[in-house]
């Protein structure tokens, strides 16, 4: 009960206070009407303020008086509003993009010290216009590749969309597109992510101090929001790239009332393959669509859809595909001047299919995961110093790990299906942001997660539930539809605080507990599209992470330079791992392969960001360590986690010579990935297997790479609507052979003929991309 008392305190203190009035409204881009997320709303005389929420809405509750209110946002001209507050006021604000006011007007420069002022730490926001100027692999702008450059984030490897946050594995990241979870964010096995940069409005990564409204994964939240569509005029944007092309159309349905955006992207590698006379089909596509309807200032509706798929087919005998489908319906409602609500209904589906076309050994394998959730989120501006958010999320999930069926009458295969699993997840949360005096801001709250693994299902009991060789089932428990098999209740406290040391300098600290009840069934380093997921169950316990972090934030030269250093320690209990040699695919007794243990990580992250001037960019350095100790793995000895990288340095720079030419550069360096290498070999029959001793006992050579790009904006003919842009990029400029992995084999020559008597072995290093130039043409009209 104690945890809820603060709510009562907040409410009662507000009742006793003098009469307050509210100021609220939406903040929008003046040009296209897009709502702006995270705009700072600040009242200098009170040294208090707020930021706009994910829907561009802000609300402040203030005593009667005359105020100057400043609205500031990166890339936009700051707007100051002066008003007499003697009644509740609704005021929608439009901000002018700086791009339109260059030279002509001097910008009233209010310090944009959001990173110092905000109570939220361990959060990074991608600046999409900056991202577009940076070099990209095959010229395809990819936000996940940029996320991988942030401090505290480690790339799973070249050509993968996997990333690791503060010692967490790749499955511990919750990836959201318009609030809907994306279970596999990869295209072409991770070469690209599912996010089409053209429709992305905002993407934020939370690494620590995670707000109570988020839950379900241990290590990070990647919150990607797509554009609402221009509600003033119709725009077409697009691009033609080396590997894929894309087009987006947006515009008003009813001017300033409703808008739409539809975008599509497709790769055309297969077109080249066809040209090369190969019967292989390899492509992916994405479609994003959104309708946004502003009924009145109190009611707004959105419907967002995303669908994407990868299709591989090899010369008519083997096919493989996977894809995500998500939809989000949202209703924003203002109950009154202080209470803002958002109700969302979210559906997400991930599936993969594998097909072998053969008259005898032909089969079709289908696996999917479906999720439906209803979320109610409310925010309440209690007074000038307290802002409450609370809500309830209900999620139902169905896991279908696999079904194999013959696809010809002569097939040797039977129909076999692994039983479905079902889960219900209730989460209640409440948190309060409190401005205590001039210097201290607190954000405290908790999330209560009530998780149920439910029927219809069977649970097998075993003589020894961890014996994966001689599996002896002793009994089977039967559960009816929606009957609880196992319930897990966890309270997740969240706390963040910020203390202003001096103007432009702050200290921040945070603690969060996160609980994960959806487990990735994979023993590989990087999630692959055939991974299945499993709920916490009779045998699988929830994974629980505790993280503490502290940081120092400082801006220099009128916020031209942002500096931050953060340190963290994270401890994970029941982290899910698998026995050596685990059989993950199509195993009805997969519970015998589960091994849960402990993981701990710590490190520090340093970053300098230059936000203004002709040269902008950032340099970051991360020093961290990640260990795991899993009973039954590596003979019970602690070992380096797959995602341990001791030193990581990343740098990005954009130099705008003039309006016509812009140069971009990316550099990345990281310690090599841990790898398990042989400690000898032996003979068994005709084979020479390796002797394996320590898991992850070695490191691959270090990874480093430099990419460069040039963006050309040809001189604009102002009377023409068509705007074109060329992006020339070179990936891996100095052609580094970056290690992907090492494997061993019998020593052989180039043509695969064994050298010597067949007893000698050799190690082979695989490396991926050499120097790769690309050209992309982007347009807008």
């Amino acid at each position, binding site marked *: 009960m104690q945890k809820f008392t603060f709510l009562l305190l907040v409410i009662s203190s507000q009742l006793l206070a003098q009469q307050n009035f509210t100021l609220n409204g939406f903040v929008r881009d003046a040009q296209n009407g897009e709502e702006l997320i995270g705009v700072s709303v600040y009242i200098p005389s009170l040294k208090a303020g707020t930021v706009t929420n994910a829907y561009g809405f802000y609300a402040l509750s203030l005593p009667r008086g005359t105020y100057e209110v400043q609205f500031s946002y990166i890339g936009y001209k700051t707007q100051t509003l002066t008003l007499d507050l003697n009644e509740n006021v609704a005021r929608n604000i439009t901000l002018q993009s700086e791009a339109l006011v260059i030279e002509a007007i001097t910008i009233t420069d209010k310090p944009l010290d959001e990173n110092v002022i905000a109570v939220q730490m361990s959060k990074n926001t991608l600046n999409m216009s900056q991202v577009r100027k940076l070099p990209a692999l095959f010229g395809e702008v990819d936000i996940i590749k940029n996320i991988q450059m942030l401090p505290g984030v480690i790339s799973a*490897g070249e*050509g993968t969309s996997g990333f690791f946050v503060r010692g967490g594995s790749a499955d511990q990241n919750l990836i959201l597109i318009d609030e809907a979870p994306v279970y596999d964010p990869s295209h*072409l096995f991770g070469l690209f992510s599912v996010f089409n940069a053209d429709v992305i409005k905002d993407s934020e990564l939370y690494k620590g101090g995670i707000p109570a409204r988020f839950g379900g994964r241990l290590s990070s939240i990647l919150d990607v929001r797509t554009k609402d569509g221009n509600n003033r005029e119709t725009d077409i944007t697009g691009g033609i790239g080396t590997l894929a092309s894309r087009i987006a159309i947006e515009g008003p349905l009813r001017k300033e009332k409703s808008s739409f955006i539809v975008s599509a992207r497709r790769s055309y590698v297969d077109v080249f393959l066809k040209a090369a006379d190969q019967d292989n089909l390899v492509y992916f596509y994405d479609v994003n669509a959104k309708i946004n309807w502003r009924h009145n200032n109190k009611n707004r509706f959105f419907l967002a859809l995303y669908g994407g798929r990868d299709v591989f087919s090899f010369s008519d005998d*083997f096919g493989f595909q996977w894809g995500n489908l998500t939809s989000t319906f949202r209703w924003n409602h203002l109950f009154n001047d202080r209470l803002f609500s958002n109700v969302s209904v979210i559906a997400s589906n991930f599936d993969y299919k*594998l097909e072998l076309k053969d008259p*005898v*050994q032909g*089969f079709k394998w289908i696996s999917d995961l479906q999720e439906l959730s209803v979320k109610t989120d409310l925010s309440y501006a209690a007074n000038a110093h307290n802002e409450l958010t609370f809500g309830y999320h209900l999620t139902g999930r169905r896991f279908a790990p696999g079904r194999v069926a013959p696809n010809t009458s*002569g*097939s*040797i*295969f*039977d129909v076999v299906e692994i039983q479905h699993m079902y889960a219900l997840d209730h989460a209640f949360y409440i948190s309060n942001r409190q401005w205590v005096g001039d210097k201290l801001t607190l954000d405290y709250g908790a999330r209560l997660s009530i998780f149920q693994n439910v029927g219809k299902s069977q649970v097998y009991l075993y003589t020894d539930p961890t014996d*994966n060789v*001689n599996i002896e089932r002793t009994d089977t428990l039967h559960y009816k539809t929606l009957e609880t098999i196992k319930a897990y209740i966890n309270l997740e406290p969240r706390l963040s605080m910020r203390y202003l040391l001096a103007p432009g300098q702050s200290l921040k600290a945070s603690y969060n507990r996160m609980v994960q009840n959806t487990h990735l069934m994979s*023993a*590989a*380093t*990087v999630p*692959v599209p*055939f991974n299945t997921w499993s709920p916490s169950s009779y045998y699988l316990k929830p994974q629980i992470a505790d993280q503490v972090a502290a940081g120092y934030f400082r801006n220099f030269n009128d916020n031209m330079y942002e500096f931050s250093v953060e340190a963290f320690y994270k401890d994970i209990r029941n982290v899910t791992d698998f026995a*050596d*040699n*685990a059989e*993950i*695919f*199509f195993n009805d007794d997969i519970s015998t392969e589960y091994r849960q243990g402990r993981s701990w990580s710590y490190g520090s992250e340093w970053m300098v960001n230059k936000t203004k001037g002709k040269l902008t960019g950032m340099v970051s350095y991360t020093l961290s360590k990640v260990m795991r100790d899993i009973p039954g793995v590596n003979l019970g000895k602690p070992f380096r986690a797959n995602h341990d990288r001791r030193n990581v340095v990343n740098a990005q720079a954009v130099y705008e010579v003039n309006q016509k030419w812009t140069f971009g550069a990316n550099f990345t360096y990281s310690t090599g990935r841990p*790898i*398990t*290498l*042989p*400690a*000898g*070999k*032996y*003979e*068994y*029959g005709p*084979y020479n*297997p390796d*002797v*394996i001793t320590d898991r*992850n006992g070695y490191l691959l050579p270090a990874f480093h790479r430099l990419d460069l790009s040039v963006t050309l904006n040809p001189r604009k003919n102002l009377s023409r609507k068509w705007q074109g842009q060329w992006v020339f990029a070179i990936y891996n400029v100095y052609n580094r052979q970056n290690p*992907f*992995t*090492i*494997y*061993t*084999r019998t020593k052989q020559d180039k043509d695969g003929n064994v050298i010597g*008597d067949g*007893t*000698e*072995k050799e*190690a*082979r*290093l*695989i*490396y*991926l*991309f050499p120097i790769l130039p690309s050209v992309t043409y982007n347009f807008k009209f």
Partner: protein
Amino acid sequence: MRNWIYVVLLAPAVWSCEKTVLLDLKQAPPKVVIEAQVTDRPGRQFVKITRTAGFYDSGETPRITDALVEVEDDLGTVFPFVHNPNDHPDSAGIYLPAAPFTGVIGRTYYLTVVADGQTFEAQDKLLNVIPIDSIKYRVNPEEAKDPKDKGKIYELLIFAREPQEEINFYLFKFYRNDSLVYYNDSDIYGSDDELLGEKIDGVPSPVFYKLGDWAKVEFYSLSRQGYVFYNDLWGLLNNDAGGMFGPIPASPRTNLTNGALGFFQVSALKDFEILLE
């Protein structure tokens, strides 16, 4: 099934290149390796005892020639083994029964090896194996287009009945003119019957033959433990060392105690021979 999954996993490797590298490896202290086999076929019982070697060593691994080896069945009959009784120069480290014996279906066998002052034990059960009903052969059109070995473009088609009421595990071996053959040197051909229907009608062989070859196919029964061992061994031989997508390499799970590598395999054996003409 598993093999197909790895084929797909290799798809990103379309962009990849590779080169030989010299690794600076820590060498583990030598371990005893036991390869033992008891079947229901006369003359097909042996135990081979060796030691592990350095990764970059060439030539045979060291042989252990002074071990004490015996097999016992569940009736208490003991079958002692002797080291290389015929003193064959190529058979150092190989132990054969002192008096010939054959395994009996349904019986469990116990192996004891004393080597390097340590005792290693294992047990395995002799399970029945299905007969091969018939074998046909035909040209494999894809292999004919681009043969790995010139002329070897015929595949065998195997016909059998898989009993659905019991759980079975199989190991398959293919011979070409009495030599054991594999398509790739790290191939192991085996299967469980979880996904198999009853009719096995014309499953093609993974290896190819030319006209005039004698082809032989052997079916071995495996216990669940044996299947697990061969499946793990295949995984180890075909691992990309914990490459991004594959599992992390690990020692195969074995029925041998005391940290010995290898396996004690007890199998029923059926074969079928055909001349391609």
